[in-house]
């Protein structure tokens, strides 16, 4: 197990370098970070030159990348458009987005798996059909439509929630935005669990467990659920990246000042240190989440052993 983790961590290094380099090239080669600083007015040539030197923009691209990465690993992510260090933005934004993602993941795991198991065990009944149609609707209607209408009806019309989340983003304020963020993935988790449970109910070991006289609850939870969760866990792992990025839409609708919001501001103002800095951290989270998922396989399926 330990050797497997080390091997996987080592394999992550080239992927991390490649992915961050791609983003770096997009931002620094396609955009012009210096003229973006000045907005519509053209920069004074001498100032522009000084800034280019300060940000190492006069070096070839790969050198810029190396210098940038060197800075990042010594904790210097550069300054955002308003003169704040990017690390300060991160300190405020990541806990908020983390809470939002946690709310969303909780909805996905609890609601998605419960609905999936219930419908998978009662295939073809009216409850199953209703939930299936609901999941299709949720997948088909884009999140930003669900988000804005949800905000309008729950926040403006009914007044149950505040339409905009306060800067502290307390956990109770994040319940509705978290649900909106989770909805599409929730639908996929439900469908995946349903298919997987329906396939496994016909498996030999389930028949054996029932024949042994095990109580129904034990068969469902210990035998059926554990085996059915493997594809769901894979999906959830890949979904953490989607949640982080999908939060751009949700955080924009509900004015949550998390990662998506800061990233979007950085993109609008073409502030390269903010964009690249946040994306580098997000890519790292995404890769680690996928590693965690692979390790979870071994917990769920005893046949899988990592040497």
């Amino acid at each position, binding site marked *: 197990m330990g050797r497997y983790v080390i091997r996987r961590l080592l394999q992550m290094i080239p992927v991390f370098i490649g992915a961050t380099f791609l983003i770096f090239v997009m931002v620094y080669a396609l955009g012009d970070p210096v003229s973006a600083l000045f907005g519509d007015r053209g920069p004074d040539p001498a100032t522009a030159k000084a800034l280019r030197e300060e940000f190492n923009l006069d070096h070839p691209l790969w050198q810029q990348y190396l210098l940038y990465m060197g800075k990042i690993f010594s904790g210097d992510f550069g300054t955002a458009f308003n003169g704040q260090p990017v690390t300060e933005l991160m300190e405020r934004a990541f806990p908020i987005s983390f809470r939002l993602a946690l709310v969303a993941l909780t909805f996905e795991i609890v609601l998605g798996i419960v609905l999936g198991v219930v419908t998978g065990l009662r295939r073809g009944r009216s409850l199953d059909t209703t939930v299936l149609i609901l999941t299709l609707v949720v997948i088909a209607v884009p999140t930003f439509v669900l988000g804005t209408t949800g905000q309008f009806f729950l926040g403006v019309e009914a007044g149950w929630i505040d339409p905009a989340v306060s800067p502290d983003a307390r956990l109770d304020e994040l319940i509705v935005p978290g649900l909106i963020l989770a909805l599409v993935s929730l639908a996929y988790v439900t469908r995946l669990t349903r298919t997987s449970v329906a396939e496994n109910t016909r498996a030999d070991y389930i028949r054996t467990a029932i024949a042994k006289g095990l109580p129904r609850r034990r068969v469902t939870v210990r035998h059926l659920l554990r085996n059915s969760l493997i594809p769901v866990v894979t999906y959830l792992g890949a979904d953490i990246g989607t949640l982080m990025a999908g939060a751009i*839409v949700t955080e924009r609708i509900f004015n949550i000042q998390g990662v998506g919001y800061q990233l979007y501001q950085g993109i609008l103002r073409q502030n390269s240190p903010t964009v690249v800095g946040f994306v580098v951290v997000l890519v790292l989270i995404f890769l680690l989440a996928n590693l965690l998922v692979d390790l979870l396989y071994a917990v769920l399926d005893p046949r899988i052993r990592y040497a």
Partner: protein
Amino acid sequence: MPDQQSDKTPFGAQEVAAAKGLTAGTATAPETTAARSLWTDAWHDLRRNPVFIVSALLILFLVVISLWPGLIASRDPQRCQLGRSLEGPSAGHWFGFDTQGCDVYTRTVYGARASITVGLCATLGVAVLGAVVGGLAGFIGGFWDTLLSRLTDVFFGIPLVLGAIVFLSMITLTGIWPVVLVIAALSWPQIARISRGSVITAKQNDYVQAARALGASNSRMLLRHILPNAVAPVIVMATIMLGTFIALEATLSYLGVGLRPPTVSWGVDISAASDGMQFRNAPHILLYPAAALSLTVLAFIMLGDAVRDALDPKLR
């Protein structure tokens, strides 16, 4: 891992004769068993599936109106009368008017073109790019497999929406093609992983080994024997992705980095309608483009589901 040498290994006369006998034997087999191929079987299933028929007809309709929107909408989507801003539905203007006083019905009809074009072209790009990279990695194996697989991992490591926003906000080009390009460039790894897996499975089949023993060239083996047997999972995945790409285009347009006015698109209209809750007093400006978009995405997802059910041998 196929190597060039094995193709050129000289045959003994006896083996050639045996191989000829083998092909003669298989040539007569279909007459007695009349086995249906995966594709005939799938088509047989699909024709009887109401979900497939409904979604296919809907998609056909969408494709037709995206090619010739004039068939069902006689007005010009860009000719707006500001005086009729946010006017509700009325006779002759069933869907009412939007903030700019444009006819919502006409714009909804004309909006199909952008969504369908982005969906189809991005899917085509993803399928070709993913199948070529994944297929070659699986077929050649060895060093190239490692290299191409790591390249796939690199692109897989960039979350799709995130990468698309960064890329589109940095370039100055606007219109449909940058959106198609960025979706294709960032989502091919999924297809590449699937096609690599199915090519590796197909490669180990007896008929591929037989083709190699008969001296078939690499390209013939790949195109005639492996491709037809490895393409099913790619088609299934691509159909399902098509719907999500259409939704993604709308999301990018909503965020202001995808399509921009004057391009007529559902995403642009939905974005304008939800901006500052414009739809509060005139729900029709949000409802119709959003419903059209959702229906389109739904049609493609249902088509993907039906195709998967028909092509997946595990569900038989």
